[in-house]
């Protein structure tokens, strides 16, 4: 089956397309629509020159240093009561963490829906924050360094996280209430740099 347009592949007839975004993290540099910055410490980022490598973030070398990709609080296009993210990513070694999803603002988890893979935890978690309180729901997937598909759905009553196409966690409290932007962040949990890779990010309003 072929479609005349990308638009017609993704939008039912007669519907006005809502915001949608995707990035394949390929080519020789990060797309200019991202802002890469340190949350703490001094890290770096570069395309990973390996098969299926995507883009790699490297943290600073002090414990808890972290680095992120966001839209720099300039384009918070995603609806707290109706949006989706799909992220293919991992962290590359022990004693590290990645978190990814939708956030506001860029440098503090005040309002979020995130998948959190933290070496300090036992399992991957779904974290929602409503501006004051975090609700972290553990999944059944043990934290690891495997590249996985993370699928988050946010609506007015709940947030859901699927990992590798299996529904793993549901949060019904402390859901975000404000406009959101994409984030992918990597954090070291030791006194050495740590890396994480991302090769796909897609988000859209539903």
């Amino acid at each position, binding site marked *: 089956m072929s479609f005349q347009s990308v638009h017609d592949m993704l939008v039912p007839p007669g519907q006005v397309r809502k*915001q949608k975004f995707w990035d394949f993290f390929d080519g020789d540099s990060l797309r200019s629509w991202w802002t890469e910055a340190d949350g703490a410490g001094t890290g770096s980022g570069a395309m990973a020159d390996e098969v299926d490598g995507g883009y790699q973030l490297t943290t600073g070398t002090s414990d808890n240093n972290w680095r992120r990709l966001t839209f720099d609080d300039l384009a918070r296009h995603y609806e707290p009561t109706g949006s989706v993210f799909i992220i293919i990513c991992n962290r590359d070694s022990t004693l590290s963490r990645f978190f990814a999803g939708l956030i506001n603002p860029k440098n503090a988890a005040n309002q979020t829906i995130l998948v959190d893979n933290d070496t300090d935890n036992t399992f991957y978690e779904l974290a929602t924050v409503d501006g004051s309180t975090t609700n972290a729901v553990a999944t059944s997937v043990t934290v690891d360094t495997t590249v996985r598909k993370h699928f988050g759905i946010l609506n007015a009553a709940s947030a859901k996280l699927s990992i590798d196409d299996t529904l793993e966690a549901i949060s019904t409290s402390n859901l975000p209430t404000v406009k959101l932007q994409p984030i992918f962040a990597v954090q070291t949990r030791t006194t050495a740099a740590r890396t994480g890779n991302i090769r796909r990010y897609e988000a859209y309003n539903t």
Partner: protein
Amino acid sequence: MVKALIDYLNAPGVVPLQRVVDNFDGDALRSWWNLTDVAGSGGSAAMLDEVDGGLRLSSPTVAFDSSQIDFNSINHYSQTSAEFIAVIRKSGDTGSRMVAGLAQTTWAASDSKVAVMYDTTGNIELRNGSTDVAGSVAQDTNWHSHKVTVSSTTTLMFTDGPLDAVNTSSLPSAALQPIFARQTNAASAKTGDIRYMEAYNT
């Protein structure tokens, strides 16, 4: 199961033609766009920080001055066989204009062009060159999805799905580039928003 995007968009054995897609997301306008002051100076384009906001184009601040984003007259799109899709919103402001479509140079030039025209007043129009055909959809401040189809004998405008205007006059005669333009009618900037654009040859 289809595994490649190319296979979703092209029948077997068909060599894909030129295509561009922009989701107008992220922290800045894609570098492949060029901001042009068609008349006057000081037009601007910036991401709009709101849900479903896309990009906001602001006109200059002198009456009847205008700005557009375009491909710097790199004209990949056929004057006889192309389509253009855009999701756009006008800020209102009777007397001002917003235009989205394919043009040889600028929205205001009388050379080749096929575009959706939110004119100073009246229903949304399909413009070929300088010839307008009004559709049935009234202008408002809501988001609308438009598709424009160009062939050698006619141009068509679909608004939010249905066919809404047909224009057989002043058909384009030269290759085209995507444009999105905004003109003010007063001593203040007027805005237009765009959150999706796709153009392709057929």
